[in-house]
């Protein structure tokens, strides 16, 4: 039953964040790239305000996998690095905390381009 509750919470929060994105795609003229950037920035702001982390603790991957989770991680990394190294942490903390995600994106991107060829959509 506990597992089911975990899944339900993850699905509900992740789904809600995606649904907001879908509404922005359908109802506004924002390009997908702009929406993604807004999500990262929103995550940073909500993370800095201390709102996002409780949500991430509660919903797990439902809140950490969407791009707002990436923003939250940037804010969290900065906060920890500043506490540890002082003001220089504001410049190093964000990327250190998110390095795994960024490197994985570059690495898997490279692998995919080596394996696959661009395909027509028709």
């Amino acid at each position, binding site marked *: 039953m506990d597992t089911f509750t975990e899944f339900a919470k993850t699905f509900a929060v992740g789904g809600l964040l995606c649904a907001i994105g879908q509404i922005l*795609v359908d109802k506004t*003229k924002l*390009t*997908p790239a702009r929406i993604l950037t807004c999500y990262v920035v929103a995550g940073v702001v909500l993370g800095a305000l201390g709102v996002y982390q409780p949500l991430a603790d509660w919903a797990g991957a439902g809140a950490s996998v969407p791009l707002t989770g990436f923003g939250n991680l940037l804010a969290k990394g900065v906060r920890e690095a500043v506490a540890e190294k002082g003001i220089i942490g504001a410049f190093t903390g964000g990327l250190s905390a998110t390095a795994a995600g960024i490197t994985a994106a570059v690495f898997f991107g490279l692998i995919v381009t080596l394996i696959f060829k*661009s*395909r*027509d*959509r*028709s």
Partner: protein
Amino acid sequence: MGTKRMGKQTIRLESRPVILASASVGGKQESKGPLAASFDYLSEDTYFGAKTWESAESAMLKKCFDLSLQKAAIQADTLDYIFSGDLLNQCVGSAFGIKDSNVPHFGLYGACSTMAESLSLAAMTIDGGFANTVCALTSSHFCSAERQFRLPLNYGGLRPPTAQWTATAAGSLILSAEGEGPVVTHVTTGKIVDAGVTDANNMGAAMAPAALETLCTHFADTGRTPDYYDIIATGDLCEVGSAILRELSSLNGYDLSSNHNDCGLLIYDRGKKDIAAGGSGCGCGASVLAGYFLPKLRSGEIKRLLFAATGALMSPTTTLQGESILGICHAVAIENLGGAC
């Protein structure tokens, strides 16, 4: 010179350059459309045997060029000029496609109006006595155009219902000072019209005022009315732009409701996902003219065609900078003066 000009923007081609032969080539999407049977060659492989989308476009253009020479039963060295254009930066689709032809080449850019532009110039060059046999050639490829003008092919962004689908197609016409076939009688060269539309996903609306301007000027210059023509074919205004054109022209006293059609509307089944408002791209108008309308003119099924291809003049940079999409439309009157020819 004075006698050839009629009114402000129209010229009369007294020597009546003949369209000896025409050929069209299409890709996979085109093979699923209602005009599939009109193409001389359709390729399920949209790479056309090449390794990149750009060289695929050149290979398609070359195939079309070769087919038109074959249909006209001439060799490339008979040609005095090639007028050719496409949608790629620096017109490389054309340049690489015909590099081995050994024929003097004029590279053109008129966006989706390029076929009417190359046909106009080819016919004028013959009428002026500067050439005997000329090729007018144009292509567009969905995959190369998509990353040239919009986004990387695999980006997967959503297409709004006003967006048009760039045709993977090419059209080639062989014109000659003598011979049998439909003739080019008049050319009305369009002016650039800025309708203030900034949405690159709504090119029909951006180009409709240019089509209106050129058609009205053509009728005023020649003294003709729309009913003189069996078909007035614009390309590619599609659904949105065609509706705007018909409404605006009736306000200007020209009723297009009975004989207007649009190449972008003809080429695909519009009910289909992704096609949205219809087809576009230089290859759309070019292949519909070469494969669908010209055989009808040749057989006498239609006698008088006004081919009015429209183009949206813009680059991704100007669009990002918030500039509006400029429209242009060139009209070419093609007629069958005899019986079946």
